[in-house]
């Protein structure tokens, strides 16, 4: 009798464990109800399970780099919301350091441009940059294609994803896009509140009001960026990174960078394009009293002749409480997005 009960318990445990996995099966790309329409061109790259699985394998495959050591996932780490936690600027092949902070791979279907300076207008073109950059993966696209063609597994994965085993530039890039597009973060407390399934506490509510009054013009809800390029008053860094200017060569774009999302800040420290701030407190201190009156400083940060955003210490603490509601544990623990 005791044995029977034990067996039943075992059995139940098994079902429960199974169920947990079942909730993380591939269900295609669906637009979260509270998000706007994505801008990615799904019509030229429809997401399929086989394409996603191939893209995920490629994303975590170090054989895309010159010396088989660096994968996309090396810098874009899921538990850090696909950023490189603890590195102010990226750390790549042969231990070389990049010049910019690794941004998250998250909600990219809504992004009209990529990189801190927006130099890449299409997600499908993005991977060419890290693969061929000598301080990131140091490889050539041609080499990558040759490696994949010679591997045992890839031809059949390309067959499943695209109908034939041919491996070419477009297929490689589209598979990577399919994986990255599936990295959707929409399960934070903020999202539950917006869906009417939860409520903010008093502190969070006060923070939300402050946020809407001071930050939301640039960090626009619900994605927490309006994807524009702005100067938020940082001093130029030691390599004199001029951001958007390097792409457009327009004086008015000097030292402007893309407004970053504020989702998952708990996992993505350090902050800003060069990772100069290690904590959110440092960011809020900056907005309060370190904003520089740069020639291209955004007008939203010089309202009524005042430079920056004055915040009392209790206001800062309320803002942090609100920003914390944007963390999405489900996203960073989603097994579907992990290396298999």
């Amino acid at each position, binding site marked *: 009798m005791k044995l029977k009960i034990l067996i039943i318990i075992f059995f139940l445990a098994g079902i429960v464990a199974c169920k947990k996995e079942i909730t993380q099966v591939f269900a295609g790309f669906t637009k979260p109800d509270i998000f706007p329409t994505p801008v990615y061109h799904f019509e*030229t790259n429809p997401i399929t399970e086989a394409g996603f699985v191939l893209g995920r394998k490629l994303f975590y495959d170090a054989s895309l780099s010159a010396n088989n050591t660096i994968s996309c996932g090396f810098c874009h780490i899921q538990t850090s919301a696909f950023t490189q936690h603890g590195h102010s600027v990226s750390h790549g092949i042969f231990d070389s350091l990049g010049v910019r902070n690794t941004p998250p791979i998250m909600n990219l279907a809504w992004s009209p441009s990529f990189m801190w300076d927006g*130099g*890449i207008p299409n997600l499908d073109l993005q991977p060419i*940059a890290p693969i*061929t950059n000598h301080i990131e993966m140091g490889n050539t696209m041609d080499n990558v294609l040759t490696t994949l063609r010679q591997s045992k597994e890839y031809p059949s994965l390309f067959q499943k994803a695209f109908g034939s085993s041919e491996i070419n530039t477009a297929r490689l890039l589209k598979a990577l896009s399919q994986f990255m597009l599936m990295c959707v973060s929409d399960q934070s407390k903020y999202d539950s509140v917006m869906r009417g399934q939860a409520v903010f506490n008093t502190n969070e509510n006060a923070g939300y009001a402050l946020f809407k009054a001071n930050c939301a013009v640039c960090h626009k809800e619900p994605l927490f960026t309006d994807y524009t390029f702005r100067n938020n008053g940082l001093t130029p860094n030691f390599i004199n990174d001029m951001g958007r200017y390097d*792409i457009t*060569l327009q004086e008015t774009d000097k030292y402007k960078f893309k407004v970053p999302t504020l989702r998952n800040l708990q996992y993505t420290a350090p902050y800003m394009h060069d990772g100069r701030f290690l904590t959110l407190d440092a960011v809020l201190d900056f907005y309060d009293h370190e904003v520089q009156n740069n020639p291209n400083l955004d007008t939203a940060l010089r309202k009524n002749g005042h430079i920056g955003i004055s915040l009392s210490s209790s206001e800062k603490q309320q803002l942090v409480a609100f920003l914390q509601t944007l963390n999405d544990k489900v996203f960073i623990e989603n097994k579907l997005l992990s290396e298999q």
Partner: protein
Amino acid sequence: MKYTFLSLIVLVIFFTSCKKDITPEYNSSATGQLSVEFDNVVGNQDLQLNTGVYTNASGETFKLTLLKYFVSNFILTKTDGTTYIVPQDSCYFLIDESSPNTTIPKLRVPEGEYSKLSFVLGVDSLRNTVDISKRTGVLDPAGTAAGMYWSWNSGYIFFKMEGTSPVSTQNGNIFQYHIGLFGGYTAPTINNLKTITLDLTARGTAKIKATKSANIHLLVDIMKVFNGTTNISIAKNSVVMVSPFSATIANNYVNMFSHNHTEN
């Protein structure tokens, strides 16, 4: 008097035969092959990669180690004024001085006599923004276009010239001119796309028949990159890529093409 009469007859015969020559029967629904030869030279010397030594208007000596450029969007005008636009899909070529068979692109065009040629130096903005699946052949960033594509500022490099000069202060005395920029995706930036139009009348029209191909022989004088509206000094500008100065170089190189002759 007799003589005048005779010469008149001779003249008439001459003209008649000439006329026959001028208007062969063209069947505009048939096509023939037209090649355009990009013969790269430096001033009045042949271009010899790595070995030739040249001197620009700023008095600087230099050698060239690499020369590549895209030509695209060919349009041909017949003597009757009608134009033929070569279909875009078969109309992108990468001229690479180190690979002689790339310097004479071949086009299929309807039969006819052509007196004007125009093409774009670079890759037009439409191709620069098209879906990755349409970037094949010379436009494949993993293939031929590998060194002719900026991945971090997505776009093709139209014209790439590298060499050495004792006046360059770079490591190894190198200089590098990588010129691109098609005007920007969403935000405007410099547009270095150049359309080159050449009249072929003076030095020979191209007469295309299904059975007879023609070759338009162009001279491309690389010296004009340095010597032009603004003389470019390697000492002052040894590396030019994405910068406002790229427009100065593009404004010079637009003048480097001339029609030398046509082989019919």
